[in-house]
């Protein structure tokens, strides 16, 4: 190790300069196509729930509290910022912002909640698939037998397992 090589090393060190970013003091802009936190525009949202159907992390929840009000919740905990909700939104109500400084000490700070008025479908009353066959019958226009309690009354007792089935045949024969 000669002094010349030491000097050369010092020159290289001086030429390199300082590359460290002064980040929390200075803002750091992101690229144009960067996808940050999705922002929901409540004025444009029509409540179609397409974003909830397409979210791979199941992080957008849709709740119907009554016939007219639909609540759309974005929780944002495990959101991967994939942008599928923004892509599928027919009204372009979701935009992927450039916001990435989302560190927080309460996980609830990431939540966005929209409470929207929904129209009622003239034919089915509610535009989503009902689970049970009885509910599907109700959608097709069949009425309840017992209107006050909203229940069907069956003549056959074969639905009750404890009752003997033999008598039901008798009823049908009658």
């Amino acid at each position, binding site marked *: 190790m000669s002094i010349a090589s030491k000097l050369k090393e010092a020159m290289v060190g001086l030429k390199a300069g300082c590359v460290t970013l002064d980040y929390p003091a200075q803002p750091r802009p*992101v690229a144009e196509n960067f996808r940050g936190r999705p922002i929901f525009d409540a004025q444009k949202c029509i409540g179609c729930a397409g974003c909830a159907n397409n979210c791979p992390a199941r992080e957008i929840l849709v709740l119907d509290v009554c016939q007219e009000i639909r609540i759309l919740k974005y929780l944002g905990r495990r959101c991967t910022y994939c942008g599928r909700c923004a892509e599928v939104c027919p009204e372009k109500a979701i935009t992927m912002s450039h916001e990435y400084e989302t560190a927080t*000490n309460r996980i*609830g700070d*990431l939540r966005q909640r929209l409470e929207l*008025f929904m129209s009622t479908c003239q034919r089915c009353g509610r535009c989503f698939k009902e689970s049970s066959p009885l509910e599907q019958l109700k959608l097709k226009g069949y009425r309840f037998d017992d209107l006050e309690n909203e229940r069907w009354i069956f003549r056959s007792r074969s639905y009750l397992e404890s009752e003997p089935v033999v008598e039901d045949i008798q009823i049908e024969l009658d």
Partner: protein
Amino acid sequence: MLKNLCQKMFGRSLWVYHANSGGCNGCDIEVLNVLTPYYDVERFGIKLVGSPRHADVMLCQGPAMRATARALRCAYDAMPSPKLVFAIGGCACGGGIWHDTYAVLGPVEKVIPVNFYIPGCPPRPEAIIYGVAVATGLVDKKVAPVEFKQLEMPIPRYHPEDLRGQGEMVVYEKVEKL
């Protein structure tokens, strides 16, 4: 209160332990990126240590898995008090994409208490530095919950006062206002 405690207890430097309990290695790379000369976090006194017994802060990546939840809890118990836990990435904050599968128990807060959340998949190195800066009180957090409630049914209507002549015709059209 937590902020005051942080400033009092962790005023000088934070030694961080880096625990991956089943993540995909994306957040690990971002955490290592934070230690590179570009985002040099050693200027805040943050140092990566190899053992939880030396650490003040645990950086959790990945969800709490069925196989690693116990080890994560042991690592947390081995850290001397006072201790902070940072959940880094969408998996540690909320369970990740596979939050409902057999092997994944859920977010790490199901196993250990979490003090700070840094969501993202993976979070940018700046986001991690921002989380550390929030914890040490250098900057304030930017996010807040958003709640919106419609008070009126938003139907565009016909307004008779908006009749307007257009050539020989009178136009009566639906307008966007309520």
